[in-house]
C-alpha cells in the first residue's frame, strides 16, 4: 500500500517505523529537513520536504496514486486542509487526520464529511488518552484496559501480587476458583526472559504482568484472582488542567470526587467555569504543602497530566511518597518510559495510544481493532474470518488446529452478539471476529496470510 504521512514528529515517525516494517511504500512529508534526514537514515522510506497542504508537495510525495494520506502535523488546520487538497486534486481514497482542538471535534459530525472537510477518520489524541485513563480508573488494579467489540470484550493487563488466590499456582485452577467466570490468559510478561504463552500448567509468579481477556462484567473477578483488588476509587487528583486534564475531570466528576491542580490562575478560572463538581486548585502538583493540604494521603488516584514529562514524573513520585495510592503519569518521551521505577504505577504514552488507533485503519484486510502494547513490541488485534471451510484456512477449524505462529494466542471470538472465550474446542465460523494476541509484532503478516481467503473463494 502506498501511504503518505504528513508530519515527522513523534507520532508520524513511530507510525512510519511500524508501517515500513510491514512492506508498505511510505512517504513522509515535513518542513524540517533535519528531522526527515534522521528518519531516512533509520528507515526504508521516502521523504519529501515541504508544506504538507501544498498541492505541489503532495504531488511530489506521490499523491497521484497514493492509497492513503495520514496527516499528523502539529497543526490541525494543515492536517484538515491537506486532506481537503488531497481529496479535491488527487481523489485520495482514505484520508486520516489528527485533530486536537475540541472546538473542531465537538462539531465533528457536521464538519468532517465529503461536502465539507473530506476526512475519513479523525484521530483525537487527547480524547483517546482521556478515554484510556478513564478506563484505568474505572477498573481498579489494571495497568491497561483495551476494548474490543465496542467494549463488550476487554483485554486487561494486571500485575500479579503475592497474596492473590491464583498467584503461585497453576492457571487452570482459575476455573475451579470461579466456575461462572470465563476468561483466558493471553500472555504473561516476566521481568526476565521472553514473554510466556501460557498453558493450563503455567504457574503465575508475583510481579508477572498478566494479560487476560474477559467479558466486561468479569474483569473485576479475574483481577481479584491476581491481586487484592483495590476498592473502587473515589478520590481523584489531577495535576495539570490542560485539554486532557479538563476533559478527564469533566467526565469523572459525576462519579468521583475530583480535584484539579492548575498553575495558571486564568486557566483556573476557565476551568472552574467549565467544571461543575470538581474543585479547581490554583498551584502546582509539585508543592508538597498544597498536596498535603488537599489530603494527598487519602487520594486514590493521582494523575500527572501536564505537558512537561519531567514535571509529571517528579510530581508523581512526590505524590506517591506522600501517600497517593496509585499514580498515572503522562509521558511523551518514550525514552523515559523505560526509566520509570516502582513509584509510577502506570505510564501513559499519547503516541502509543494514537498509533494503536491509527494502525487499525492502516492495516489491510479485516482488522477492526489494533492495540499496540508494551511500547510496540506486542499487539492485540481483532480480525474477521471470511470465506468457508474450502476457501479459508481458518473457518471450520478448531482453535487448537489453527496453524498459528508460536507467539500468537487466540483470546476470544465474537459471534454476532455472543462472546466466546477461546478454548481449544471452539470451532471458527464464517464472519467471526477473532481477537488475537501477538507477543511478537513481526508475526502480523503470518497471521494476515492465515486469515486471507484463498483463490477458491473468488
Amino acid at each position, binding site marked *: 500500500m502506498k501511504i503518505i504521512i504528513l508530519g515527522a514528529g513523534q507520532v508520524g515517525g513511530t507510525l512510519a517505523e511500524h508501517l515500513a516494517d510491514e512492506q508498505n511504500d511510505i512517504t513522509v512529508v515535513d518542513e524540517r529537513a533535519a528531522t526527515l534526514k534522521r528518519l531516512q537514515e533509520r528507515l526504508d522510506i521516502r521523504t519529501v520536504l515541504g508544506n504538507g497542504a501544498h498541492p505541489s508537495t503532495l504531488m511530489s510525495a506521490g499523491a497521484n496514486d497514493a492509497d492513503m494520506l495520514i496527516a499528523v502535523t502539529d497543526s490541525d488546520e494543515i492536517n484538515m486542509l491537506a486532506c481537503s487538497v488531497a481529496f479535491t486534486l488527487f481523489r485520495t481514497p482514505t484520508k486520516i487526520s489528527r485533530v486536537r482542538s475540541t472546538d473542531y471535534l465537538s462539531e465533528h459530525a457536521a464538519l468532517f464529511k465529503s461536502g465539507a472537510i473530506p476526512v475519513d477518520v479523525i484521530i483525537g489524541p487527547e480524547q483517546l488518552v482521556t478515554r484510556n485513563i478513564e478506563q484505568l480508573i474505572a477498573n481498579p488494579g489494571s495497568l491497561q484496559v483495551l476494548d474490543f467489540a465496542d467494549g463488550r470484550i476487554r483485554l486487561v493487563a494486571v500485575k500479579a501480587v503475592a497474596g492473590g488466590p491464583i498467584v503461585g499456582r497453576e492457571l487452570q485452577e482459575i476455573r475451579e476458583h470461579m466456575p461462572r467466570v470465563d476468561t483466558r490468559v493471553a500472555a504473561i510478561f516476566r521481568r526476565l526472559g521472553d514473554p510466556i504463552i501460557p498453558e493450563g500448567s503455567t504457574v503465575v509468579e508475583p510481579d508477572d504482568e498478566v494479560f487476560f481477556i474477559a467479558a466486561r462484567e468479569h474483569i473485576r473477578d479475574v483481577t481479584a484472582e491476581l491481586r487484592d483488588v483495590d476498592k473502587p476509587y473515589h478520590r481523584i487528583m489531577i495535576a495539570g488542567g490542560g485539554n486532557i486534564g479538563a476533559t478527564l475531570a469533566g467526565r469523572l466528576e459525576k462519579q468521583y470526587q475530583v480535584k484539579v491542580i492548575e498553575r495558571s490562575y486564568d486557566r483556573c478560572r476557565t476551568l472552574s*467555569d467549565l467544571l*461543575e463538581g470538581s474543585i479547581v486548585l490554583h*498551584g502546582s502538583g509539585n508543592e508538597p504543602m498544597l498536596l498535603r493540604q*488537599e489530603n494527598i494521603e487519602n487520594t486514590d488516584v493521582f494523575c500527572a497530566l501536564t505537558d512537561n514529562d519531567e514535571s509529571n514524573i517528579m510530581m508523581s513520585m512526590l505524590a506517591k511518597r506522600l501517600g497517593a495510592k496509585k499514580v498515572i503519569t503522562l509521558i511523551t518521551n518514550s525514552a523515559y518510559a523505560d526509566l520509570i521505577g516502582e513509584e509510577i504505577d502506570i505510564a501513559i504514552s499519547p503516541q502509543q495510544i494514537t498509533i494503536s488507533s491509527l494502525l487499525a485503519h492502516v492495516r489491510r484486510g479485516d482488522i477492526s481493532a489494533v492495540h499496540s502494547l508494551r511500547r510496540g513490541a506486542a499487539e492485540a488485534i481483532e480480525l474477521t474470518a471470511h470465506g468457508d471451510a474450502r476457501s479459508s484456512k481458518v473457518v471450520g477449524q478448531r482453535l487448537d488446529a489453527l496453524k498459528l505462529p508460536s507467539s500468537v494466542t487466540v483470546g476470544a471470538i465474537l459471534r454476532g452478539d455472543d462472546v466466546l472465550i477461546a478454548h481449544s474446542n471452539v470451532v471458527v465460523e464464517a464472519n467471526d471476529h477473532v481477537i488475537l494476541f501477538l507477543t511478537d509484532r513481526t508475526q502480523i503478516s503470518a497471521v494476515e496470510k492465515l486469515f486471507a481467503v484463498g483463490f477458491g473463494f473468488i
Partner: protein
Amino acid sequence: MQFAMAFKIIGVLLILFSSAMLPSLLLSVISQDGIESAFAIGFGATLAAGILLWLPNRLHRRDLNIRDGFLVTALFWIVLGLFGAIPLWITPQLNLSPVAAIFESISGLTTTGATVITGLDALPQSLLLYRQLLQWLGGIGIIVLAVAILPMLGIGGMQLYRAESAGPSKDRKLTPRITSTAKALFGIYLLLTVACALSYFAAGMSPFDALCHAFSTVAIGGFSTHDASLGHYDEHAILLVSSLFMLFSAINFGLHFVALQRRTARVYARDSETAFFITVITLATVVTCSLLLTTETLGLEDSLIHGFFQTVSIATTTGFTTQDFSIWPLFLPILLLMLSFMGGCVGSTGGGMKAMRILLIFRQGVRELRQLLHPNAVIPLKLDARRVQTEVISAVWSFFAVYMFCFVMIWLALLATNLDFISAFSAVVATMNNLGPGLGEVSGDYGSVSEVGKLLLCLAMLMGRLEVFTLLVLFTPAFWRH
C-alpha cells in the same frame, strides 16, 4: 439632567393614570352611591395636572439618560401616590386625613396592601373597585420596573438581568426595547388576571369580588373588599386558587413569557431562582402546617389549608389573611414575617429583597465555607451554570446592607413615635417588604398609627418598592450636579 423630559413623561403618566378613576366614576354614577364627585374631582385634578406638565414640554424629544431614569422611576410612584389619594381624601364616608389617604394610595400602588380603612364591607362598590385597581396598576408598573428598568440602572446586582444585546455604548440609554418588552409582559399580566378572576368565580366568588380579588392577587397586593380579607369565604377552593395564583405571580414574568413562547414548563425547572423559591416555600409550608398541628392551634384540614395559604400569602408578600395569624404561636408569625424579607422572584410583582439575592448570598456563604477548606481553590459562584461576576455579588451585598440599615432606621424612628416594639417591628417589615398586615396594633389596619408614623411607613413602602437605591440616589448631591 433634563427636567423637561422627566416632566413630559410624568405628565403623560398622569394623563394615563387619570383614566384609572373612570371605571369607579362610572360605577358610582350607575349605582348612585353619592360619591361620584370624589372620583370626578380626582379625575379632573389628575388630568389637569398631567396636561399642565405635558403641554409645555411636549416638543422635547431626547433620549433619557440614566439619571432621568432614576428620577422618573422614583417620581412615578410618588406623584401617582399623591394624586391617587385625592378621591380617597374627598370621599366623606371615609373621613380620612390627607396623610391617611396618601398612605392608603401608596400602599395600593406599591402593592403593599396595608390599609387604614375599616368597615370595608359597608363601603360603596365604586370605592372598593378603585382600591383594587390601584394595586393592579401598581403591579404593571412593578413588572416594567423590574424587568426593563432596574436591570438597566444596575441596582443591587440587577445588571445580571440586563439584556445581553445592550451593546457597549458609553452612556447607556433606555432603549425602545423597553416598549416591546413591556407590551409582552403586560399581555401576560392581563392573561393571569383574567385566568385568576375566572378561577375565583368558578370557585364561588361573586363576579365583582372575583374581579377585585384577581386584581390584588396577581399584583401580589393584598387589598380585599372585606374586612376579614379572604377569611370572609369558607370555601377551601377559593384559598387554593388564591395560593396558586399568588405563587404564579411571585415567579419572574420574564420566565412566564419564555414558557409561553416555547410552550414548555421546563424553563421553570431549569431556573435556579424559581427552584430555590419553591424549595423555601415548600419547607416553610411544612414547618407551618406541622406546628399548627402539633400545637393543636387548628384541626387537621384547617391546619393544612390555612397553613399553606398563609405561608404563601405572607412569604410572597401578598398579605391576604384568613385567620388572625398574629395570635398563632409567636414563632409562626415571626417566621412568616422573616420569609417576607425574601419575597418573590426578580421580575415578579412580589416585594421583599427577592429570592435571587437571597440565593446569591446563600451561595456566597457556601462558597466561603468551601474556600476555608481549600484555601488554594478557585471557586466560582455560579447561577444557572454561569459564573456570577464579583461586581454583581458585591452589589447584592451592599443592597442587603443598605436595605437592613434603612429597615433599622425606620424601625427606630417608628419606636420614637411611641409605637410598641412588636408593632413597630412588624409594621416596618410589612411595609418595607410590601407585605401588608403586621402584628400587634397593626395586625388588622394601620388606622391607629400616628400621622408621622404613617409618613414613615409611606417612605418604607416606597423604599422597598424602588429597591432602596433608586430612592436613595436622589438624595445624593452628586445626582443633582451637572
